């Protein structure tokens, strides 16, 4: 079993919809959680970086962490075609430097 599980999709939604992307993890020592966006043939771009449980909002993006259920979510409001990309979730243990990623979810926003 992978430490971070993520549905690879693909996920296709119409423009303007609210998108929900989710991951589960098994390592209870994870304290830091992140979401990256990756366009084709580009490197991962950091979207959200959170510590422990709770919500964090940045523009149209909201990240949620529920450590009791080991569940990570990313919500995208008013989705745009430019949001079409692969989204990677990840976790990191306090004091460690290794990011552990999920497989990534491929998202397409249809105009």
């Amino acid at each position, binding site marked *: 079993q992978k430490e971070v599980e993520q549905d690879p999709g693909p996920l296709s939604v119409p423009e303007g919809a609210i998108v929900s992307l989710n991951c589960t993890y098994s390592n209870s020592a994870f304290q*830091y959680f992140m979401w990256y966006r990756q366009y084709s*043939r580009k*490197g991962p771009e*950091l979207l959200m970086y959170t510590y422990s449980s709770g919500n964090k909002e940045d523009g149209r993006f909201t990240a949620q962490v529920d450590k009791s259920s080991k569940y990570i979510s990313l919500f995208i409001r008013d989705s745009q075609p430019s949001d079409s990309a692969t989204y990677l979730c990840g976790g990191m243990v*306090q004091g*460690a*430097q290794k990011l552990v*990623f999920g497989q990534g979810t491929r998202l397409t926003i249809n105009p």
Partner: protein
Amino acid sequence: GAGVSQSPSNKVTEKGKDVELRCDPISGHTALYWYRQSLGQGLEFLIYFQGNSAPDKSGLPSDRFSAERTGGSVSTLTIQRTQQEDSAVYLCASSLGDTTNQPQHFGDGTRLSIL
């Protein structure tokens, strides 16, 4: 540009050859990481450098893989006697490193193809 720079962007080589991949981190970032991204395996940690400390090599898949970081800045990942299963995108990231668990910022990677 102010981001992580990697070269070459693409590399095609024959099985058995050695390859060197280069990473230039963001200026002022003291921590540097190498990851590998391949179909079916996702993004995997390879090695981590922080300042003058001994690197964390726990993710290197075999002794054919090595990396060095000269002068605390540029890093080179070397793969000796390449195999077809080494085909992947090799990504470099850097972070501030002044404290642990800083956000990591990635380059666009080197796409390595072994014929």
